Each structure stands twice: as structure tokens, then as C-alpha cells.
């Protein structure tokens, strides 16, 4: 017996490198999160409120893009290598995409953090959504473009690996993990077209002063064309772990391989034609287009609801293999002392709660009550911030040992860490959801206003602020424990089998599913047709109304405006 690092040492090295970048971003991003949580609740203020937005941009970009996507790059490389049982076709190409995306991420991070140092004359406090006409330094946009191109090349690398496997195995079904990687990447290629056009055609020339204005609604719509599918790009690595790793950790095996394939195909088809649901409140987009996006969004619940079934069913199967009995008492037979299992199970539980608040967001008339309030970050801290992030951390406790050949430094600390994340997020997301219902806005350094107060019918605004501050602090402590544990694991002595890295075959195998599920060309073609149906008319209408380059005023105008507000307040 040997573990992953012994079989594929070159690939293990790349995966470790991606995880190092991922976890570095996690550490810095979490620290920014702590500063924000304490600043906007008023308990500790070490930055100016105008710098809050730089810190917020750093938090969003480093956690939502760099931490999640670098983890994905590593996980997918691991999954393709192990499920195809062959090394990557050209390891130089693998290092090339790693180098390109890392350089891009560093550029973007430098442009953001420079905003804290006024003497550098560089800033990018345009938030994670980075849409015009707020302008960032060109380095920010260039860095993001390099990062995205890096992910494209990574996808090409995995497709090349698949192609060489296919030429040796013409009649076999695509191994499940590789199938998940390929469908996710097809979705990613389709959806990043929007952000690529926005950044390369409009924002980069504009930030260099080559074009004077942009059409804000157009760049915003192109951003959201990518801005919702990217959510599924974060989520798919978590799903890959829930489908292929979690059942094994629970003591059993995956319930159904065919249904897992159906779920990933549904994500490929439905992820992209939904972005307009972020723009329910935007003028300039007809109600009919919003209704189409809403319908697609609701149907996108289907693969997540199917996943909920499969994950719970697989866990129950595992519990019964371990001797669990009864309607619910089997829950007690699950391996709750295993941090990798417990972290993923708690992440799944939080995802259910986040799914429900997401259904509220998706309902286009109820959305009016919560749009751009703290409810929304409350929602995505459950989905991305817990379902994805906690699954990635928990999964690391199982993955890192097979990538390094060393055992985990401390399982008790790991178990404490994942539970602490869960508790911290219960506090923070509860506070945020409820504050949102009172109308307290998101993305603001000072939620208190001069001429009115927010009033809570249950509890008080102070109580909500305490919950958010406590939650944010616990989450930061949890990240520190995670990083500490993984770092110390890297200096343990190597052992032959640091973790049981085998994955059992599913109860219902791929042979039971129709061959058409593996026809990636067909699904891609249908996905493209759906995107054209959802987006061609709204985009045409936006361009014909506002012009390709818009006609908004002269930007940026921050400096004068900041003086103006200071003048008014003082």
C-alpha cells in the first residue's frame, strides 16, 4: 500500500503548492474579516471608515476568489490524477497554470492592500463585485485576468489528461470524479466569458484611460453573468467531496453514481442563465427577463435538493454499516470524533439553512425586502462561508496527509476547530439575517445614521451587533487553529500510510446510468443555447439603450467627494 504522494509525487507537489496559496489567502482574508466584524459593530476600531472598503475588498477577493479557487485547483488536480489513475500529461503545463494564476492573484492582492497606504497612489476598493464606474488600479484588473486565464489553462490540462485516458479506454464510463471536474470546468468556461469581456474589453482600457467611459449597466450585467456561476464553481469542489469522500468517512459508500452525474449535468445547464437574479432591482432590464432568470434559479434548487438526499442517504448507509439502527438513532453511530467527517456534516447542515435563505433571495418580489441588506451576507456566509469553506477545511484534514505522507498534527484540535466554525457562524449569520430584515444595509462601515434608527421587534440591534462580533471573532480563532494545525502537520515525521485514502465503489455504479450522461458535447451545446436564450435579448437592449461605452460622468471622483462629506460632518 502506498499513498497519493508516493504514487504521484510530481502531482502531489503541485497540489501542495496550490493549497499553500489557498491557505495563505484564507489567513489574510480571515484577518480582514475580523477587522470588519469588530469595526462595523463598533467594538474595536483600528482603521478609518473609508479604509473599511479596502479591507472589505480584500476580504471578498482573497476568500471568495483566491482561497476557494486555489483549493479547487488543487483538489481537481488530485481528483483527476487519482480517478484516471495516471499522472498529468505534462507537468510543466501544470506548473505553468499554477505560476500564472498565482502571479495574477498576487497582483490583485497588492493593488488592494496598497489602498491602505496613501503614499503608494494605488487602490482597488471596488469590492469583490468590482463593477464600474468605480475604478481600480489597472494592476487589479490585470491580475484578475491572469488569474482567470490560469484557471482556463488548468481546465485544459485536465481535459488533456482525460483525452489521453480516453484513447487508452475507449469504451469505459468516465470515472465519477473526473466527470465532476470536466462538467464543472465546462460551466466555468461558459460563465467566465462574461467577466473576461467586461475586464479585457472595457475595464482594462478604461483604467488605463484609453476609453473615457463605460456603460455601468452593461459591465454590471456582464459581471453578474459570471457572478452567480462562480458561486457554483466554489460549491462544486464541496459537492465533489460530499459525493465521493464523505460517504467513505461515514463508514459506507456513495448511494448513487448515476444521480450524481445528473446533478452535475444540471449545474452545467442551469448555472449561467440565472445571473440576472442579482439584478432584480436594476432599472433598464425588463420584468420578463427577470422572470426567466427567476424560473431558472428555482429549477437550480433541484440539483441541490437531490444532493441533500444523496448525502444524507449515504451517511445513513454508512451509519448502518457501523451498526446504527432505528429511524434517527443511527445518527449516533456516525464517526463524530473524526474532524473531516464532522466538519463536512456540519457544513452540509449549514448549507440547508443557507439554501432556505437563498430561496427567499430568489423570490423576486420578496427580494425587495432584503436586497442589499445584511441578510445577503448572512446568506452567503452560510453557503460559501460555511458549506464551501468548512468542507474545504475539513476535507484538508483527510487530504493533506496523503499529499505529504505525514499524519495530522492533532485530531482533537481539528475537531474543536470545525465545531468552533459552526458555532461562530451560527452567531454571525443569525445576527446578519435578522439585521437584514430590519433594513440594515450590507457593505457599509457605519450602519448607524444621523436622522433615524433601526428598530428590532424581537431582541435589539445591540444584541445583533454582539452576536456578529462574537461570531466573527470565533471564526477568526477557528481559522488560526486550522492554519496552525496544518502547518504543524507539515513537520511531522513521514509515515507509510498516514490516512486511509481508498474510496469505495458506489452502491449503484455508473453502469446503471444511460451512456448519454457522459456525452459532454451534447450538454455543452444545450447549456450554450440556454445562455443565449437568457442573455441575448437583455444585453442587446442594454447596449441599444445606453451604448457600448455609456456616457456617465468623469471618474474617479472619490477625493473631492470624501472632502465634501468630511466638510458636511464637521
Amino acid at each position, binding site marked *: 500500500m502506498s499513498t497519493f504522494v508516493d504514487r504521484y509525487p510530481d502531482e502531489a507537489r503541485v497540489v501542495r503548492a496550490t493549497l499553500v496559496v489557498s491557505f495563505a489567502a484564507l489567513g489574510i482574508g480571515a484577518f480582514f474579516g475580523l477587522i470588519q466584524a469588530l469595526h462595523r459593530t463598533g467594538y474595536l476600531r483600528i482603521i478609518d471608515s473609508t479604509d473599511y472598503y479596502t479591507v472589505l475588498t480584500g476580504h471578498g477577493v482573497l476568500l471568495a476568489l483566491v482561497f476557494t479557487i486555489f483549493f479547487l485547483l488543487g483538489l481537481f488536480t488530485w481528483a483527476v490524477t487519482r480517478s484516471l489513475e495516471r499522472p498529468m500529461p505534462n507537468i510543466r503545463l501544470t506548473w505553468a497554470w499554477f505560476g500564472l494564476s498565482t502571479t495574477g492573484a498576487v497582483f490583485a492582492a497588492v493593488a488592494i492592500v496598497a489602498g491602505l497606504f496613501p503614499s503608494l497612489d494605488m487602490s482597488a476598493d471596488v469590492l469583490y463585485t468590482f463593477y464600474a464606474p468605480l475604478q481600480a488600479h489597472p494592476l487589479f484588473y490585470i491580475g484578475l485576468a491572469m488569474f482567470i486565464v490560469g484557471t482556463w489553462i488548468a481546465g485544459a490540462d485536465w481535459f488533456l489528461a482525460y483525452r489521453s485516458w480516453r484513447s487508452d479506454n475507449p469504451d469505459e464510463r468516465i470515472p465519477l470524479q473526473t466527470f465532476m471536474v470536466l462538467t464543472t470546468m465546462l460551466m466555468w468556461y461558459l460563465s467566465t466569458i462574461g467577466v473576461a469581456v467586461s475586464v479585457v474589453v472595457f475595464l482594462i482600457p478604461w483604467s488605463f484611460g484609453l476609453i473615457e467611459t463605460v456603460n455601468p449597466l452593461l459591465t454590471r450585467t456582464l459581471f453578474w453573468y459570471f457572478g452567480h456561476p462562480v458561486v457554483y464553481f466554489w460549491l462544486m469542489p464541496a459537492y465533489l467531496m460530499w459525493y465521493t469522500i464523505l460517504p467513505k468517512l461515514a463508514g459506507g459508500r456513495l448511494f448513487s453514481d448515476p444521480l450524481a452525474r445528473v446533478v452535475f449535468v444540471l449545474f452545467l445547464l442551469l448555472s449561467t442563465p440565472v445571473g440576472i437574479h442579482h439584478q432584480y432591482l436594476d432599472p433598464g432590464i425588463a420584468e420578463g427577463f*427577470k422572470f426567466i432568470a*427567476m424560473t431558472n434559479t428555482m429549477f437550480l434548487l433541484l440539483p441541490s*435538493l437531490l444532493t441533500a438526499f444523496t448525502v444524507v442517504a449515504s451517511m445513513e448507509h454508512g451509519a448502518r454499516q457501523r451498526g446504527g439502527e432505528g429511524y434517527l438513532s443511527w445518527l449516533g453511530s456516525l464517526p463524530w470524533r473524526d474532524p473531516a467527517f464532522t466538519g463536512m456534516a456540519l457544513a452540509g447542515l449549514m448549507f440547508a439553512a443557507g439554501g432556505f435563505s437563498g430561496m427567499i433571495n430568489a423570490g423576486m*418580489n420578496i427580494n425587495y425586502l432584503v436586497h442589499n441588506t445584511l441578510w445577503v451576507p448572512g446568506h452567503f456566509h452560510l453557503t460559501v462561508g460555511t458549506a464551501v469553506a468548512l468542507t474545504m477545511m475539513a476535507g484538508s484534514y483527510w487530504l493533506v496527509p496523503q499529499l505529504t505522507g505525514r499524519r495530522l498534527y492533532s485530531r482533537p484540535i481539528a475537531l474543536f476547530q470545525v465545531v468552533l466554525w459552526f458555532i461562530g457562524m451560527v452567531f454571525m449569520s443569525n445576527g446578519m439575517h435578522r439585521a437584514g430584515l430590519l433594513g440594515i444595509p450590507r457593505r457599509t462601515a457605519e450602519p448607524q445614521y444621523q436622522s433615524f434608527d433601526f428598530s428590532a421587534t424581537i431582541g435589539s440591534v445591540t444584541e445583533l451587533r454582539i452576536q456578529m462580533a462574537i461570531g466573527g471573532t470565533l471564526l477568526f480563532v477557528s481559522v488560526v487553529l486550522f492554519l496552525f494545525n496544518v502547518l504543524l502537520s507539515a513537520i511531522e515525521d513521514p509515515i507509510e500510510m498516514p490516512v486511509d485514502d481508498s474510496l469505495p465503489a458506489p452502491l449503484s455504479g455508473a453502469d446503471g446510468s444511460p451512456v448519454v450522461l457522459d456525452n459532454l458535447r451534447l450538454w455543452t451545446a444545450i447549456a450554450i443555447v440556454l445562455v443565449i436564450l437568457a442573455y441575448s435579448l437583455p444585453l442587446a437592449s442594454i447596449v441599444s439603450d445606453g451604448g457600448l461605452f455609456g456616457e456617465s460622468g468623469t471618474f474617479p471622483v472619490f477625493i473631492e467627494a470624501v472632502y465634501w*462629506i468630511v466638510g458636511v460632518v464637521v
Partner: protein
Amino acid sequence: MEIHDYEKLWLGLALLLIVGFIATVAYGAVGAGVAMVDDEGGTVDPNALDQHPKFSDPGVYESGDGEYDVYVIARQYMFQPGTQEPIEVPANSTVTFHVTSADVIHGFEVVGTNANTMAIPGEVATITVEVSSPGKYGLLCNEYCGGGHHGMEGTLRVVPRTEFNGTEVSG
């Protein structure tokens, strides 16, 4: 394809839930009359708002019996009107807000209500609300619009009909 019986049941219930959600939204739009912000407000040149028939003098305009149009410009970091002087509308009336931006993207939210929209340069957002009894509401910008974003607020006052004088608040 092999699908477990429980899976089929779950699939059926999931689809029922989804269709139910879509039905409630459709009912909200058609039955309850919840109108969406859409492209009805048209477009406007954000550099020439001073030449616009209404935005050149933003404020409250009477458009019919008990019906009012309110033109609001959002800019870094104020609502015109709203911030320097409150927006005043009479009680028990139908008010349509026409909101646009003179510079970057802003939000326009009447705190504690579902009157909420984006203000995008070049686009005019329209929302119609039924205003009932007198009272005072906060207005805030809920989309990040630059370093002074958190200071962008205003006031909406609903006054008894007898105290309302439309010309005073215009401009």
C-alpha cells in the same frame, strides 16, 4: 437508469416545491400586483440632468388626484431631495419615485419597507408605493458608492394632506 423509490419520491416533492415557488412569485406579480423595477423608467443622460424636464428641478410633482411623482437624484453622497431637505409627500396617496444617479451606482432604500431600488447612471428606476398614515422614514444608500458611502442618508416625511404644499419641496 436505476433510481431508488425514495429518490423518486424526493424528486417529485422537490419539483412540487419549485413549481410552488414559481407560482407564488407569479401570483405576487399578477394577483397581488407587486410590480418589478424594470425598463419602464427609460434612460437619461447623466451628464445633462440639468436639461431634463424634471431632474433639472428634482422633487415632488402632483400627477393626478392623490397621485404624486417624486424625482430623486442620487450622487456621492446625497439624495436630491432627501438629504439636505426631506422629501415630503401627503398621507393616503400613491407615490411614484423616479430615481437616477449622477455619478456612480447607488441604492435607494426606504428603511423598514420594501421600497428599494438601484440607482444606475443613465437609467431611471421607477417604483410606485401606497403611502398611508403620516410619519417619518429614513432613506439610505445600500449599494457601495465610494469612501463616504456610509454617510449617504436622507429623510422621507409623510405629512397630513392639509399640511402638504407641493411647491415647497420641489427643488
